[in-house]
C-alpha cells in the first residue's frame, strides 16, 4: 500500500439530533447523540467495515459521508475535498465519485424504471456523459456485474433478489466511483446468493480499485471482505484494528462480547461466554463515562466517571477502554 491520499477521511465526526417537544413552539428537550466523535480513513482500493448493533450510529455515519445529513461537528474528506463545504462542479464530482449500495434490493430499485434508466441515472443527473457514451457505459456496467446488456430493457420485478442487487451494484459503479458505501449489502439475500454477491464485490474492487465502506452487523461478512474493522457502540468507535488483528485479539469488552454472541461456524467451536445483560441504552442522554459501563461485566468505579479515549495499543489497533 502506498501512502496516497486516503479516499475517505473522517475526522471527529459528530451528529446530534434534537429531541423536541411541543407542537407549535417546539422546544429542544434533549439530544440523540447518534454519532459522537468518529475518526477513520480508507486508503484507495481498501475496505473498511463498521460493525455494531442497531442504534450504534453506523448508518448515520454512512449518511454523513454521503452528505445526506449535515454533521453537528467534524469533517469528512473525500479525495481531499471537504464533503460538507463543496459546491457546484466539485459537488458534482463528489456525487459521481462516491456511490452507495443499500440493503434491500426490493425497495432500493424504482419499480417503474427500466434497468437501463436505473443504471444510467447517476450519469444523467450529473451530466457527465453524452447519450451514446451513456449507452455504452450502461452495457459495460451490466457486463461487469454478470448481467447481459440485453437485460437493460427489463424492469426490476423481472429479476431475482441476487440479480437486483447486481443491478444496484451496476448503478453504483457506472459513474466510476472511487468509494462505494455498502450498507448491509447481502443481509437481505438468500444464503446461497450471498457468496455470489460478496465475491462479485471483491472482484470489482480488484478490477476497478474502488474502496468500500462496509456497514454490517455480521462479523463473518466483515472478516471476509474488510481489511480494517471499526466496532461502534452508541455513537462511538470503541475499537478499530486491522481485520486479522481484531479477530485474533479483540481487546474491548464490548468487542469480545460481540464475538462471543456471534454464532459458531461449527458445533464443536468453543466460544468465550460473555453474556451481556440488558440492551443497548437509549442514545438520548447516554450513560456517563464509558458508554458501555452499565452492561460491561468488567466495569470499575472510574468507568462510570471518566470517558476513555481511543489509544493505540498495537500498530493500527486502537481501543477505548480503561482496563486494557
Amino acid at each position, binding site marked *: 500500500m502506498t501512502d496516497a491520499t486516503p479516499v475517505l477521511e473522517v475526522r471527529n465526526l459528530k451528529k446530534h439530533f434534537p429531541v423536541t417537544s411541543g407542537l407549535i413552539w417546539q422546544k429542544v428537550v434533549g439530544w440523540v447523540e447518534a454519532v459522537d466523535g468518529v475518526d477513520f480513513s480508507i486508503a484507495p482500493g481498501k475496505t473498511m467495515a463498521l460493525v455494531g448493533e442497531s442504534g450504534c450510529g453506523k448508518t448515520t455515519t454512512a449518511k454523513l459521508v454521503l452528505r445526506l445529513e449535515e454533521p453537528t461537528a467534524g469533517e469528512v474528506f473525500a479525495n481531499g475535498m471537504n464533503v460538507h463545504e463543496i459546491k457546484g462542479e466539485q459537488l458534482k464530482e463528489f456525487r459521481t465519485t462516491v456511490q452507495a449500495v443499500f440493503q434491500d434490493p426490493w425497495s432500493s430499485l424504482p419499480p417503474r424504471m427500466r434497468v437501463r434508466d436505473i443504471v444510467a441515472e447517476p450519469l444523467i443527473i450529473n451530466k457527465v456523459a453524452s447519450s451514446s457514451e451513456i449507452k455504452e457505459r450502461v452495457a459495460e456496467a451490466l457486463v461487469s456485474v454478470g448481467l447481459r446488456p440485453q437485460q437493460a430493457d427489463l424492469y426490476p420485478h423481472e429479476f431475482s433478489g441476487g440479480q437486483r442487487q447486481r443491478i444496484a451494484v451496476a448503478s453504483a459503479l457506472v459513474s466510476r466511483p472511487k468509494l462505494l458505501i455498502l450498507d448491509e449489502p447481502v443481509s437481505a439475500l438468500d444464503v446461497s446468493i450471498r457468496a455470489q454477491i460478496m465475491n462479485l464485490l471483491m472482484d470489482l474492487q480488484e478490477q476497478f480499485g474502488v474502496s468500500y465502506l462496509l456497514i454490517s*452487523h455480521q462479523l463473518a461478512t466483515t472478516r471476509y471482505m474488510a481489511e480494517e474493522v471499526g466496532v461502534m457502540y452508541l455513537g462511538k468507535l470503541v475499537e478499530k484494528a486491522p481485520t486479522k488483528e481484531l479477530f485474533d485479539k479483540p481487546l474491548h469488552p464490548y468487542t469480545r462480547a460481540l464475538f462471543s454472541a456471534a*454464532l459458531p461456524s*461449527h458445533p464443536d467451536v468453543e466460544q468465550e461466554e460473555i453474556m451481556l445483560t440488558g440492551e443497548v441504552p437509549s442514545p438520548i442522554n447516554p450513560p456517563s463515562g464509558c458508554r458501555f459501563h452499565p452492561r460491561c461485566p468488567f466495569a470499575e468505579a472510574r468507568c462510570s466517571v471518566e470517558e476513555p479515549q481511543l489509544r493505540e495499543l498495537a500498530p493500527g489497533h486502537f481501543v477505548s477502554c480503561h482496563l486494557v
Partner: protein
Amino acid sequence: MPREIGDVILEVEDLHTYCFTRYGTVKAVDGVSFSLRKGESLAIVGESGSGKTMTALSLLKLTPRPAARIVKGAVRLEGEDLVNKTEQEMRQIRGRAISMILQDPQTSLNPVFTVGNQLLESIRIQNPNDNKPTLLRRAVDALKQVRVAAPERRISDYPHQISGGMKQRVVGAIAIACEPKVIIADEPTTSLDVTIQAQYLRLLRELQEETNLALIFITHDFGIVAKMCDRVMVMYAGRAVETGPVRDIFNHPSHPYTQALLRSVPSMDENVDRLYSIEGQPPALWDLPPGCRFAPRCPHADDRCRTEYPPSFEVGEGHTANCWLLEKPGSKVENSTKQEASA
C-alpha cells in the same frame, strides 16, 4: 447436556402440501418425512422458497387457505394423526400441544392490546375456571419464566413501549404459557441484534432443559444450527435432501447442496481467501426439473440426475441424503419408493 432425549413425539410422514394458484400447482412441500423426540432440537434449514415454513405451518394446519392444502401424508403427534382433524379439534392442539414462535415480534404482537392481555388469552385457554387475579398472577409467572425484568409493570405495557428483545420474550412467554410439548421457532432471532439474539437463544435452551420441550428451528443460518440443534434436515425446493445428526452434517456433508451451502458461508474463526458460490438460483416451484431439483446448479450432475429423482441413501447412522452420487453397492436404499413414485 442435562437434557434427556426421550420417545418420538412428532412424526411426519411423506407430507405433501401444495398451493393451487392461477399459474399452476406450487409444490411447496413435496414428500417430507421426519421425526422429533422429546427434548430434542431439530433444525429445518433451507433458503426462502425451500418449503421450510410451509412444512411448519402444515404441522399446525395453518397453511394459507384456500390456496394451500395438505394433499398427502401424515402428521402424527404422539401417534395421533392431525391431518384429518377438524378446525375445532386443531384449536385444542395449537398452543397446547404444538405452539409457534414467529419471526418478527413487531408484527406478531397486537399493538392495541397490552402485553398482559395477550398473555391472558393463551393462559385462559389452559385455565378456563380461574378468576382474573389468579390469571394475572399466572401471566406474571409466565413473564418471569422468560426472564422479563419487573414483570408486574410490563404486564400493563403496550408492545410499542418495550424493546424488540423484550417483545420476542413476550412472544416466547405466550408460546410456552400452555405448556406445549413441541415448539416451532420460525427464524426466531432474525430481527434481533447479535447480543440480544445470544440472550434469546440461551433462554430457549434453558426453557428446553426445564421442561424437556421438543424444538423445531426453522432457519437459514447454519450458526443457529451449530449452536442449538441436535439434528438437521436440509430442504431444497420442497424436499428434504439431507438429514442427520448435527456433527455428521458439519463434518461429512453428503449432498452437494449441503456441501456447497456450508462452503459458501463466511466463517468468524478463520480467514477464507475466496468463498465458494453456488451459481444460479433455486428452481421455481411450479416448474420443477424432472430429476434431482438441485441438478441444474450441481457441479456433479449427470444425465441420470437430470431425469430421475434420487432416493435416499444411508451414509451414516441416522444420516441420509438424496443423491445419486452416494449410490454404492453396499449403501442401503431406504424404503422410500412411495416418494419416488410421486415425483
